[in-house]
């Protein structure tokens, strides 16, 4: 069995700031990391390998520095990683990313199972896994919270609004997982450093059969054209001191606002 786990190299969104002076988002200055949700996908792949025997390959589309994220994923238990990168890699939309990932899955495949996190922390589109499944013409299940491997099929549970649905899915297939599926193992910086770069291959768009020109922002399905701040801060009243005084003030504010009625 061969499993491809798609991981995204993302900025730490808690460190991304909007700069009112330049009306720009300060993204490049933010530290970068592996997308949390993809860690759950990787853990699911590694667990499945333990049960069934498999090769687990990490696939990533991103800038050259994303090799750091691929190395981390290999340290977490993948057998090897592939990073598809190029000058176009910084500004891909979901459809562009998915086309490159589908190309990677074909060029490095065939794969029985493609796993990814449900969403990315930076974009929150939750589109790429479903797009990859569509481009590969295989079944897709989103929101997977339990996964059992079998011969040629997998059994999955997924939470939808107000219900849990169970599916049997014939392989090959694409699944995106929620954080409920497992708790990803943690790795130390030393373990990541020890990963040999020979386990991280780098490919161009052409290597995976995608025309670079088709990845230009003008050719993309969606393109970011303007940015503005999301909300203005509230003018907050700071309350501190003795606990009993605090309690009295808080109750007074609740009453004044009439929010208990």
């Amino acid at each position: 069995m061969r499993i491809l786990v798609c991981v995204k190299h993302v900025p730490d969104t808690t460190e991304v700031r909007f700069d009112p002076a330049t009306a720009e988002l300060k993204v490049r200055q933010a530290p970068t990391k592996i997308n949390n949700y993809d860690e759950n996908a990787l853990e699911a792949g590694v667990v499945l390998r333990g049960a069934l025997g498999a090769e687990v390959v990490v696939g990533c589309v991103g800038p050259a520095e994303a090799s750091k994220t691929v190395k981390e994923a290999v340290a977490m238990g993948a057998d090897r990683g592939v990073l598809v990168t190029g000058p176009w890699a910084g500004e891909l939309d979901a459809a562009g990313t998915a086309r490159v990932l589908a190309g990677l899955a074909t060029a490095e495949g065939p794969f029985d199972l493609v796993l990814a996190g449900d969403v990315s922390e930076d974009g929150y589109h939750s589109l790429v896994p479903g797009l990859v499944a569509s481009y590969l013409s295989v079944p897709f299940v989103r929101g997977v919270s339990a996964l059992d491997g079998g011969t040629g099929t997998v059994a999955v549970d997924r939470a939808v609004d107000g219900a849990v649905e169970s599916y049997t899915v014939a392989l090959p297939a694409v699944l995106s997982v929620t954080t409920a599926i497992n708790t990803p193992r943690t790795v130390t910086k030393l373990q990541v450093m020890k990963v040999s770069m020979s386990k991280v291959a780098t490919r161009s768009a052409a290597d995976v059969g995608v025309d670079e020109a088709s990845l230009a922002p003008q050719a993309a399905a969606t393109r970011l054209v303007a940015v503005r701040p999301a909300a203005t801060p509230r003018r907050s009243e700071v309350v501190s001191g003795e606990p009993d005084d605090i309690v009295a003030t808080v109750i007074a504010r609740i009453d004044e606002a009439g929010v208990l009625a």
Partner: protein
Amino acid sequence: MSALVVVEPGHDAQTLVELARPVSTTVDVVVLGESGEQAAGADSTVVVTADGCGCGEATAALVAELVGAKGADLLVLASTERLREVAALLTARLDAACAPDAVALGRTDEGLTADRLLYGGVAIGTLALQRPVAIVTAAVKPSAGGGAPAPVQTMAAPCIEGKTLTGRTAVADEGGLANADRVVAFGRGVRTHDDIAMVRALADALGAELGCSRPIVDDLKWLDLPHQVGLTGTTVKPQLYVAVGISGQIQHLVGMRESKLIISINNNASAPIFEASDVAVVADLYEVVPRLAQALAARSA
């Protein structure tokens, strides 16, 4: 420009109709299911019952057929778990431009645009939708009921080969969070699982629903997703929101910043939650929360 709005039974389609209206000459509503109400402000509403298993691929095929039949160039889907899956499949199927969780739509010389939150809610970005068909998803409210029933039509929706639905179990709707008048939510400032009882006592004293931040669900797994307030959980808009030991990462703030009165309790005076709060209690939550619960309970007794 012709828009097709797609919702599920129990949804109030009106907010989606209003989202589409400024950029559309006609707005038609489809309710995917067994029954549905006429949507206020729409040109037409029809209930479409699929004769298949209702899996994502089958639903995508059915909606694609409706888009073709109507000649729609804008598709607005309720941003539910089920329809988010369908949105991804339709984006590939129709080679569409997709903006999930759109908050506004606009039109420029270059075509349709959609506004959506970026980087967990730090900013709002405007996306140019550079394809002949645009797909957006947007938050939808539950219907209050009582509307006139819409006509029902049955359509074939063949399932994709290789994917078989083997069971569907209804889950109790634990979180009345989305429509709660009062919410008390807690985060990592609460040190142990046992201490949840202390927060729950405050929620009970206020007649509030219990909520939490993402790490409580994702990392500690103390509560389930229906309790999570924020971008990946539930967006709440209560009269009163009390944040207990929540630092206020942007993805949490996005889910609660529309609340009327926001009171936050945190011992870190520079916690980001305070910027989104009306009352910033800088104190040890273990000293304040039990006293506050007791004082409120004593008062109503």
